[in-house]
Structures are given as C-alpha cells and as structure tokens.
C-alpha cells in the first residue's frame, strides 16, 4: 500500500560475501510497512526468511546459484560491511549502513532547511522552492551533470574510493572513482544510478510510473488514482460512483419487478385460474389458494434427496434475503428495508 518504494534498493548489492550476523528483523527504516515481511526481490510475493538475508528461500537459492557463477562481479559489494564507515553491519542501504545513511540525509536536510529565511509564511520546508533556492550545493538529493562535490564527510568516505587512479567522474567531486562504480566514487555512483533509473523511467513511460509501481490502481475505469481495500479496490470517488450505480440499478430492478408483477396479475388470472407461488424465481402452481408459497418453496430441504422424510418439516432458519442492491453480495435485513447495512447507510447518505 505504500505510494512509493525506494528506488535505490538494489538487491544486487547484498549478494555473496560473508555475513557478520543474520538480520534479526526488517528495519522499518528500510522497509515500508506493507512490504516489511516480503522477500527483497522486487515483485516476489513470498515471505522473507531472516536466515536468508531478507530473501525467501526460492530467491535465496537462485541467488546463491547465480553468485557461484559470477563471484568476482559482486565481490566488492559486501552487504555485511558499510562502504562508508567500513563497520560490520547487519544490513546496508545502497552499500552504506543505516547510521551513515541517516547522517547523510540529516546533513542534507539540515543544510536545506536553514537555507531560507523563516519569513516564508505559506511555505514549509517541504516546498521544493526552498530547496532550489538553497545556496548550499552539498545536497545528496541533488543530481545532474554539474552536480556538486560529495555530500558525505571525509570520514564517511571509503578507502576503496581513494585507491582509484582517477578522480570521480562527477564534476567538482574531490574523491576518487572506482572502475566498479563506473568511474564514480561510491556516493556519486549511487546518485548516478538513482538518476539514471529516474531518467529512464521518465523517458519511456510516465515519470511517476516507476515511483508508484507497487501501488494498486483504482478499479474504476480510466481512473489514475490508487485503490483502497476499504473501498473494495476503488478510490473514494469511484467507490461512491459504483455505489450510486448500484443503487440506480437496484431502483430500476425494483421498479421493473413491481411493474411486471402488476402486469402479470391480470394475465395470470386470465390464463389460469390457479395462482402461482409468490417466490419470484419459482413458477410452480399453488396447491392451495390460501398459501403464498408452493410446497417446494415452503420446505426447500425436501428437495435435498430421497433421504429426507417427506412428512417431517425440517427445522430451518428463515432464508436470508440478499441485499436489494443487485450487485451487492451482502445479505439484506428488514431493519434496513431489505438492504444490507452498508448499502442502507449509503442510501441514507446520498440516496
């Protein structure tokens, strides 16, 4: 149900290599609420296994197999080690531990939030106009060709970056790039990859498609919003529209039934002198004029089979009637005039 899943979460990073300790529980910081217990492979519906580093058994095995074929390719991406502080950690995010990640985002947001005078009455720090006017170029969220120098402190840089022979490809970045990171330093590489992903998504399909890919679209026709289980898979607007439609249908069916009954009465009296069963779906002729239902409808259990004793009326509850709204699956009740509680409430509100 989250509207946006982290783009930067790349399961490729955490394959292979020794684990210092198995993760004990999914971090709420890294996982959204609804995907917390799901396997880390994108789109995999199975539940994760903590022993398998957040993957389900199937994906874990598949990855193990894959890793054994290409061990060198993934060696540098050690999920058990933060690439920034080089500490052994249980879980990494974009190659860095959550503490380092938090620090970078905190640094970035604090530099952004202090960049504008407090006089901006209608604007909050959420307003991107504040961000764009920020004099500080050191933003982890900022990207582009003229992107600024790295946004981590010196301490947060890995020696691995410095072992490279050339400087990071990003203009203005003082750190060294690595061939594994396509010539970028680690953090610029993360930025590069995120933006590349974003640019690719915006170039091909809707720019937001990749960001909301894990959300459930509304069931309504031509509706671009999100559906909700609370509204039977519709968004609120489509839900109300669907309900309205349901009621119109109910009303129409009711009127049709009434009018057909009115029409049927003289016809039946003309065609046959014996009245029919009152149940709409039944066409049996009544055995006795004083009764409303035929024998079959009066004792539906008798239709069950030869085992049933014909003479003994089976003890049964009064049959539940469906809600009068035709497309509704619920049962109606007399208190709600034949509608189910929900439809009745809705009818009172909008009908």
């Amino acid at each position, binding site marked *: *149900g*989250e*509207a*946006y*899943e*982290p*783009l*930067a979460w790349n399961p490729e990073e955490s394959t292979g290599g020794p684990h210092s300790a198995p993760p004990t529980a999914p971090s709420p*910081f890294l996982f*959204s609420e609804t995907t917390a217990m799901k396997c880390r492979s994108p789109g995999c519906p199975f539940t994760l296994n903590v022993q398998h580093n957040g993957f389900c058994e199937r994906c874990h095995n598949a990855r193990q197999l894959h890793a054994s074929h290409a061990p060198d390719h993934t060696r540098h991406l050690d999920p058990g080690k933060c690439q920034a502080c080089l500490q052994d950690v249980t879980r990494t995010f974009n190659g860095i531990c959550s503490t380092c990640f938090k620090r970078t*985002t905190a640094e970035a947001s604090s530099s952004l939030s202090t960049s504008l005078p*407090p*006089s*901006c*009455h*209608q*604007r*909050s*720090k*959420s*307003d*991107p*106009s504040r*961000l*764009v*006017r920020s004099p500080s170029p050191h933003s982890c*969220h*900022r*990207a*582009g060709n003229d*992107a600024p120098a790295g946004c981590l402190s010196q301490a947060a840089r890995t020696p691995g970056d410095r072992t490279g022979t050339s400087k990071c490809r990003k203009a203005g970045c003082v750190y060294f790039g690595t061939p594994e990171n396509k010539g970028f330093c680690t953090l610029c590489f993360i*930025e590069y990859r995120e*933006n590349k992903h*974003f640019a690719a998504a915006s170039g091909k399909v*809707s*720019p*937001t498609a990749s*960001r*909301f890919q894990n*959300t459930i679209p509304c069931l309504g026709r*031509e*509706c*671009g*919003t*999100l559906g*909700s289980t*609370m*509204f039977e898979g519709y*968004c*609120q*607007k489509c*839900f*109300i*529209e669907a309900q*309205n439609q349901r009621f119109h249908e109910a009303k129409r069916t009711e009127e049709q039934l009434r009018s057909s009954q009115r029409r049927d009465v003289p016809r039946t009296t003309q065609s046959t002198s014996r009245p029919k069963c009152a149940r709409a779906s039944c066409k049996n002729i009544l055995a006795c004029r004083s009764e409303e239902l035929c024998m079959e409808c009066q004792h539906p259990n008798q239709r069950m089979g030869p085992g049933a004793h014909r003479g003994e009326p089976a003890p049964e509850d009064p049959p539940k009637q469906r809600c009068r709204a035709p497309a509704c699956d619920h049962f109606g009740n007399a208190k709600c005039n034949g509608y189910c509680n*929900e439809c009745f*409430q*809705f009818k009172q*509100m*909008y009908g």
Partner: protein
Amino acid sequence: AEQVLPQALYLSNMRKAVKIRERTPEDIFKPTNGIIHHFKTMHRYTLEMFRTCQFCPQFREIIHKALIDRNIQATLESQKKLNWCREVRKLVALKTNGDGNCLMHATSQYMWGVQDTDLVLRKALFSTLKETDTRNFKFRWQLESLKSQEFVETGLCYDTRNWNDEWDNLIKMASTDTPMARSGLQYNSLEEIHIFVLCNILRRPIIVISDKMLRSLESGSNFAPLKVGGIYLPLHWPAQECYRYPIVLGYDSHHFVPLVTLKDSGPEIRAVPLVNRDRGRFEDLKVHFLTDPENEMKEKLLKEYLMVIEIPVQGWDHGTTHLINAAKLDEANLPKEINLVDDYFELVQHEYKKWQENSEQGRREGHAQNPMEPSVPQLSLMDVKCETPNCPFFMSVNTQPLCHECSERRQKNQNKLPKLNSKPGPEGLPGMALGASR
C-alpha cells in the same frame, strides 16, 4: 474614523455569529466507512458584499477601511490578476486575520461571513488527514511535486523516507494545537495540498487568484515561483456530489483573503475568469493535483465540477475578440437568521445617517468637531469573549472583562446587594437560549 464601523462582519450581530459557530461543527459528517469528512449542507452558502456606491466617497472610504483588505486588492489588481475582465463582476478582498490560519479564515468568511476562530475547518482538515485514507492525497501531492519545476530541473530525488517525512510534516502543519509555529504565528501556515484536501472536505472547488512569482517588495524582482494560484477541484468526489459554485480566494504576501462579489452591483456576469491575461495572451489557470489521465481530460473535468461559461473579451489587437472560459459564481444565499451582511448593512446605514448629521452640524457650528467620533457603545467591542461562563458576547474596552450586558447586570446586582459579589448565572444571560458554549 476607523472606529465608526465594526472591523468585521460578525461584530454586527453576535447572536448570528454564535448561531453560525454552533451550526458549522454540527454540519460536519464523519462517515465511519472511510469516506472523507465533509459538510452536509453548509458548504453551499455564499456571502456577497453590499454595494457602497450609494454612500458619499468619504464614508465609502470608511467602509472600505473597515472591511476590505485594500493592500491585497490593489496588488492583485495592479498585477492584472484580479478584476481585469470588465465583463464579469468585480470581486473585493475582505480582511482576514493573519495568524497562520488565514486560509481557513478566508474560506469560512467566503461562505458564512465569520472567520474560522473556532477552528472548525482547521480541525476538519486535520482530522481528515489523520483519520481517513489519505493515500490518494499523498499520491497526488507526490505527482505534483515530481512534476514541479524544482524536481524536474534540479533532478531532486526523494526516497521513501524523504517522502514520508515530508508528508508527516504536512499533516503536522495542519494541526490546531501547535503552541507557536515556526514563523512566529499562532498556527502553522498551510500549503497547496491543504487547499486541495479542504476543497474535498467542502465538496466545492476553490479558485485561488495569485501572482505566479514571489517578488521583492522594493525592486519587484522575482524571488521564487509561486504555485498556489489556480483551480482546486474536489476530485475525490463524483462531480454530482459537489457544489459547483467555487470559493474564490486571493493570495498575496503569504496571506489568503476571500474575494467576494458585490450584490446588485451591475449588469456584469457573476463569474470568475479561468484564465490569466498575461503578456499578450490568455493563459489557463492551473488545475492542481491532477493525475495523468485526469490531465488529459482537464476541460471535461472543469465543466463537470464548475459551471463553465464562455465570455467574450477584447483582445490585444484592435477590434479583436476572444472567448475565454469563466466559472459562474454563486449569489448570496445565506438564510436570514445567519446573514451577517444584512446586519452590517443596517449598521452602516444607521451610522451613515449619524455621520451625515454630525458633518452637517459640524459645518454649521464651524468648529472642528470630529464627525466620525464613535457614538454607539458596541463599537468598543474587543475580540475577546466575555468572562462570564457560557456568555456568547464579547467584552468591550469599557466593560472588560465582561460584555455590556453582564457588566450592566453586575452593576445592578451590586447596587441591590452591595455585600454580595456573585456573578450572574448563565441561565439569566441574553443569548443563552441559543445554547451558546465554546
């Protein structure tokens, strides 16, 4: 001169104001099935200002000073954002409090003539954001953020945590119990998404008329883009469930005001243009928070949620005519028992008569007597409630901390029973039949 007339409509009849304040919270419906909190009937009310051209210019000036926010009016008019189209009725900007809750004050005043001092709208907004399914609000907000100039041009890239933090912050901003907002105002200021949620609570479109740039007051140079202006449609409701006459607000200098029409002001159409006249062309007002499919059928949506009419206007070239879209506006429809404009107008007429007599007398006597000296006791009213529990009236400068009625009553009691120092019970107070309680 400013004290001749009350500085707000509600001061002209406290009983009516109390009645409105009682009715509004009762009108909010909070469905239990997840549907957004909304008003049942009161969102359909609209206020219109009385015309002032029958008064002499000096007195007209007094009325305008009392009720109209002339700074915003002048700024928006000079920017050709407001009242540029002569085919439609003129809109006037009413004053609102600048306590950070001005969006709600302006909206409340547009519909009912009172400000949101009881925070009915603000609380409705906050409870909607806290208690109902807001995923689609968040979704639209994210979409709009991603499409914004800032994201597109700078390549800003938010992760889930950033989005969640921002969203949580937006919810917190709507809260009513912030002791003191960041800006030093009583409440946190609200943003575009709050307007969108509000228009869904009201099931009524909101049109914000504003400049597109935040400019320097001194040089006029551009500071930053302003995105608040435009049309907010209650898109979380089917159009047939909504009231199609919009609420029109003005925004300038970080402040919202209601832009109301003048009653019986002339033959012009009661409507607001849905375009801006900008640099030699007509530019459509932005419709906020549309999804991609909705954006493709923007025109259709506008026609569904608003009463769109075409208005012929003069083009830039001589003799050319353009057809522009405009949204029809509602006329005054407040029931008599809660219509504050009627009372204010009566008061204005009464004061005008006195003012004319005084000026006449002053002229005759030839001495410099101030014709605008306040004469009615209620004009000393303060914006603070009487101290007597459950009393619906406001204290005055002379009788504080009590209202006139309670003060008088107390004096009488003290005269009768000088030894007893008891306060009058609420049952004896005027206005208590209304069941006033705050």
